[in-house]
């Protein structure tokens, strides 16, 4: 319990000074605002703030930057849920059920469960960080490419639930995603694939452009084409702000499950926030009782609560390898590392001894920041929901503008805009012919990672395929995968047989 002792004696003493509280507040507010704007992610914001923070003392600066990082994750879900424009990869999943809820007049509860879920996950994850940071960091180091590939296989199997009602259409969509994922320079060999000698394609296609094209643009085109004349006039979709008793009851378990899925992913080098959100989504979908399962795809609150918690827990998780080993596992963490270095502070094994006020002050400020963000975001829910009162033609026009701005903000490249609209058209056609778009996104995210880890594992082990069975962790993961694939059909058959007899 050394961690707790240091947290209270050193940490809160540092974080609870007026100055540092102010920095935390500024960071959280700024982060929320940035999270709401699609395309402007926390990584870029933290990078742009770096020169500004040079004149502040390191502890204050890092507390503020951590606030931005956290705040952006809180705010990121807002546009995703209300406008179907996921501005960063971690909030793509929230758009799936969240936007359906918003359209059904339940935008308020969707935003509330996202905010409270983020708070719960953030706080639990920070507690785990306080108590277990060094232990967890050393454990995750043991996970090499072999284990990571097995984890990808498991992810593929687990998210097969998102394939939708027609497996054929689902698989086609998945394959399109995998194909798009191949574009760009292949990491291991340095060879360009499917770039047709066109330089902007060398770095591959940004997942955010695809998600915004498919969701925001595709959806707008679809609505403009088919739903326009159906619902004439201004229709208020604002509905209630607060979650009712049943929604609380349906949310708390997904929050906890999301945290349990998200946190470990954040601590793994190269874990990221996309995979845990998808895993949490499919877990909620699989675990849902039959009557709730029906609701998935139409606005199930579990599908927002789980992934949002997973996202925030993963974000907190990334601080573990960053603080204890100096290893950044996300783009934002990498820039936070640069911030440390700016002050001649090297995060890593020595940090807890050399700069205890800073580390514990930072960790304490995470607890405070979480509360601040909740207080900041809950009242805002009412305000955000007003957005939905905007007449639909204007609202959809605004969505197109936001998505366009977001896609351009990523790299300031006209090509991304072209891509956004091409993908948007594709999303429209997919929607029209009832192809699910989620498998495409999954393929695009997991495909390239699976390939990378497979090639890396093969290269290190000189082409020996049996390593996947020789490493215990990977063997266990593969066995779980097998169980996921085999057990449910068997159970179904058994039930069918029982019914017959």
């Amino acid at each position, binding site marked *: 319990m050394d961690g707790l002792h240091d947290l209270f004696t050193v940490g809160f003493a540092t974080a609870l000074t007026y100055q540092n509280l102010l920095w935390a507040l500024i960071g959280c507010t700024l982060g929320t605002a940035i999270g709401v704007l699609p395309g402007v992610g926390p990584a870029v914001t933290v990078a742009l703030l770096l020169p500004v923070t040079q004149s502040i003392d390191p502890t204050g600066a890092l507390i503020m930057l951590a606030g931005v990082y956290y705040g952006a994750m809180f705010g990121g879900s807002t546009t995703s849920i209300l406008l179907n424009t996921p501005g960063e990869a971690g909030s793509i999943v929230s758009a799936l059920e969240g936007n359906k809820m918003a359209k059904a007049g339940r935008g308020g509860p969707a935003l509330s469960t996202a905010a409270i879920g983020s708070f719960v996950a953030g706080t639990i994850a920070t507690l785990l960080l306080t108590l277990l940071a060094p232990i967890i960091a050393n454990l995750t180091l043991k996970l090499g490419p072999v284990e990571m590939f097995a984890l990808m296989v498991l992810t593929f199997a687990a998210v097969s639930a998102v394939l939708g009602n027609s497996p054929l259409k689902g698989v086609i969509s998945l394959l399109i995603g995998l194909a798009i994922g191949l574009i760009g320079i292949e*990491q291991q060999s*340095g060879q360009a694939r499917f770039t047709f000698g066109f*330089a902007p394609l060398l770095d591959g296609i940004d997942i955010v452009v695809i998600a915004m094209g498919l969701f925001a643009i595709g959806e707008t085109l679809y609505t403009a084409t088919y739903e326009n004349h159906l619902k004439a006039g201004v229709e208020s979709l604002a509905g209630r702000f607060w979650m009712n008793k049943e929604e609380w009851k349906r949310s708390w378990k997904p929050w906890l499950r999301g945290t349990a899925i998200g946190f470990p992913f954040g601590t793994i080098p190269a874990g990221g926030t996309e995979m845990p959100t998808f895993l949490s989504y499919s877990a909620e979908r699989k675990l849902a009782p039959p009557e709730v399962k029906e609701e998935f795809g139409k606005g199930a609150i579990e599908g927002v609560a789980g992934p949002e918690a997973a996202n925030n827990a993963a974000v907190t998780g990334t601080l573990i390898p960053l603080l204890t080993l*100096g290893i*950044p596992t996300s783009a934002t963490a*990498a820039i936070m590392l640069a911030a440390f270095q700016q002050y001649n502070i090297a995060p*890593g094994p020595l940090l807890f001894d050399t700069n205890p006020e800073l580390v514990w002050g930072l960790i304490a400020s995470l607890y405070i920041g979480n509360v601040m963000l909740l207080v900041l975001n809950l009242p805002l829910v009412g305000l955000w929901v007003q957005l939905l009162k905007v007449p639909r033609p204007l609202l959809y026009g605004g969505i197109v503008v936001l998505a366009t701005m977001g896609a351009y903000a990523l790299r300031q490249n006209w090509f991304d805009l072209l891509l956004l609209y091409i993908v948007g058209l594709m999303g429209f056609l997919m929607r029209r012919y009832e192809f699910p778009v989620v498998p495409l996104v999954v393929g695009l995210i997991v495909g390239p990672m699976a390939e990378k880890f497979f090639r890396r594992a093969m290269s290190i082990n000189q082409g020996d395929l049996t390593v996947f069975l020789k490493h215990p962790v990977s063997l266990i993961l593969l066995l779980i995968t097998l169980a996921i694939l085999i057990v449910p059909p068997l159970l179904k058959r058994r039930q069918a047989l029982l019914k017959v007899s």
Partner: protein
Amino acid sequence: MRKLPRLIATCLLALAPITISYAEIEQFKIMAPANPGGGWDTIARTLGDALKANGQAKNVVVENKAGAGGTIGMAQFINNEKGNPNALLVAGAITVGAIETSKSPVNFSMVAPIARLMGEYDVVVVPEDSPYKTLTELMDAVKKDPGSVSFGGGSAGGVDHIIAGLMAEKVGVEGSKVNYIPFAGGGEGKAAILGGQVTAYLSGYGELADLITAKKVRALGVSSDKKIDGVDIPTMKEQGVDVVMANWRAVFGAPDITDEQKAALTKLVEEAVKSKTWQDKAKASQWTDMMMTGDDFKKFLEEEQKVTAETLKKLKIGG
């Protein structure tokens, strides 16, 4: 309170615009062909701050244009800044490799080499519990069975990869036989060496200094000509692996600027680098001063392009 003198200066400027003869550039542009926060961006912004602090430029705009190892930003710089004497492009050793591997339509002959600024030498490390105590032992293992020794490092065809290839060549092993595992971004790579996923790992010294001090990894050799100041790690060269290479960074002027304009830019950069702003940052970030201008830099650039192209061919990267 740093603002006060500037405020006074601005007032004076406003009062007597004609009498001021000091050549302050109104608008200066620096292209950082990478996202905010990275190495090139840091250089661009530090240089910009130095120019402003010195009163050499009134406004400095840093433009970020990431992609394809910096060649996308380079292409935009070449297209947009033609003949602009108040613009600089940040590029470096990585760009040399990227131009080769990505068959880029733009190259260094289209810009004006101004100055090599700084760089970082690579260090080879192994996990603390590794059986290899010296570089010689590690390279002996490479000689015996190249496939069994995996080298982690930055992107394929980058400086780390080239150094790994050259090390192998120097002990008589074909560069393409090196079992090189590229990692995007330093995080994953560091985790891989700490967890013992790869046999050895190559990266800039600054990036690994903390892990070396904390004895989490063992440093076997640095890629500098002589020992790095204050760092007790033998060079590769003195251990019989004759590789000297740095991840250098430099600035270039726009296409079609005159020789006088080139000279003025060179002077401008030389003065900016002397400023406290730049020097403080260099110290904090453990940059090695590699200032080189004029014909020396041109010659160095040509040599570097030749070595990189040859090594990449041997490594069978790109092309």
